[in-house]
């Protein structure tokens, strides 16, 4: 019994060990893995992110010039953010909020420059 006394006294006068969530929210760390966002202006539809995604959450459609992203399949591993050479995939550190139905995001890629016409 006397062995536990310092811990007991420290807990009695120390205050609660938990915080009042959702009134008090902890700020996430700097490199924390939160969610993925896409920057439409930089994407050139090279397909690096879709090939390396372990969960098959990104699909590239070259005819319609668009990129389809399924957030419900994403495991937030950030392999796509490291594979993209044009900085079109943004790694954010805030955790995503819950949703009732599984969303599907469609992005139109605007990064490709027109090739100069040969004379």
């Amino acid at each position, binding site marked *: 019994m006397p*062995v*536990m006394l*310092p*811990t007991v006294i420290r807990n009695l006068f120390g205050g609660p*060990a938990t915080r009042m969530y959702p009134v008090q929210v902890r700020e996430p*760390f700097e*490199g*924390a*893995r939160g969610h993925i966002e896409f920057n439409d202006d930089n994407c050139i539809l090279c397909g690096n992110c879709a090939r*390396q995604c*372990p*969960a098959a959450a990104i699909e590239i459609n070259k005819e319609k010039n668009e990129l389809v992203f399924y957030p419900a399949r994403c*495991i*937030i*591993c*950030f392999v796509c953010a*490291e594979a993209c050479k044009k900085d079109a995939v943004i790694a954010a550190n805030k955790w995503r909020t819950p949703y009732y139905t599984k969303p599907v995001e469609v992005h139109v890629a605007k990064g490709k420059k027109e090739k100069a016409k040969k004379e």
Partner: protein
Amino acid sequence: MAPRTVAPFGPQHPVLPEPIQLKITYEDEKVVNVVPALGYGHRGIEKACEINDYPKNIHLCERICGICSCIHGISYCEVVERLWPMEIPPRAKYLRTIWSEMSRTHSHLLWLGLLADALGFESMFMQFWRIREKVLDLLEMTTGTRVTHSVSVVGGVRRDINDEQKKICIRTLQEVRKEAEALINVLATDPTVKARTVGKGVLTKEQAIMLGNNGPHLRASGVKEDCRMEGMQAYGELGFEPIVETDGDCYARTLVRARETLQAIDLQLEAFSKMPEGEIYVRPKGSPPANEAVFRSEQPRGECFYYAKGNGTRNLERLRVRTPTFANIPSLLVMLPGSELADVPVIVLSIDPCISCTER
């Protein structure tokens, strides 16, 4: 003859982290027979690893278990690197060692809290998990998440620890060591804890070896065996000695795991001071050649065995994972008969069961 009752232990029980069923036959409070029933968490991960390319399997292998996920990812990378075989830079080896020992610290603190909860000592359970939160904050700061870190790749690691993070880690680890030592002192000297764990579930040295035990379960019976003695990653350069007890009962297993927690914190502080500078990633050349490789690593729960076979393409031909609890469960079939009804949760928890690792 006294009347016999058959009572199920599980699949849901407050003491078990994951579901397993043991059908126990009692004769008036003494256990007579045990029959296990598995299969509540089988997901077919070994088959799924043959479909993906080899870099994508790291994320699959980590999700075999939630508590010991860091070392599963690191072991997969080590066994695939042995197919070429290729060497990784020294700074990457030290970083992998630091994250493995951090994972071992938080897993053993979790187990010590569960043991206190199984005995009914709930205040101790909350105090241990309160200290564990500080270690999980360190893991989130350095790798990005609290569990399923996926911080290692074939050829090195993905992230580095800079100087400011290193100072915060060292300061937090020293606080955690002081608080954990005070609580372990309470747990090891309390007469109620001793009355419920000393002399329960005894296994002698010969029985432990023939039943295939490994990890702290084997070291508590007097056998000096630890996978880290092979000197892989950075363990050869840090001063490492396995911790052994000789009694073979539940109290000896508690002491082994408690001392390993403090030893893990000391190993991390030593690795931080000896870490060399340099690069952290080396690109592998081509696809894994047609070869076989075996790697054994020391998980918090025991010895984890990885076998990989490549065939020259980007897919692996075969990946086999044998986790420590897979080999520790048959020892329950020998320890439980002869014990009493109230000792069954303590004995089942003393092997540190991780059933999602067993069933993959």
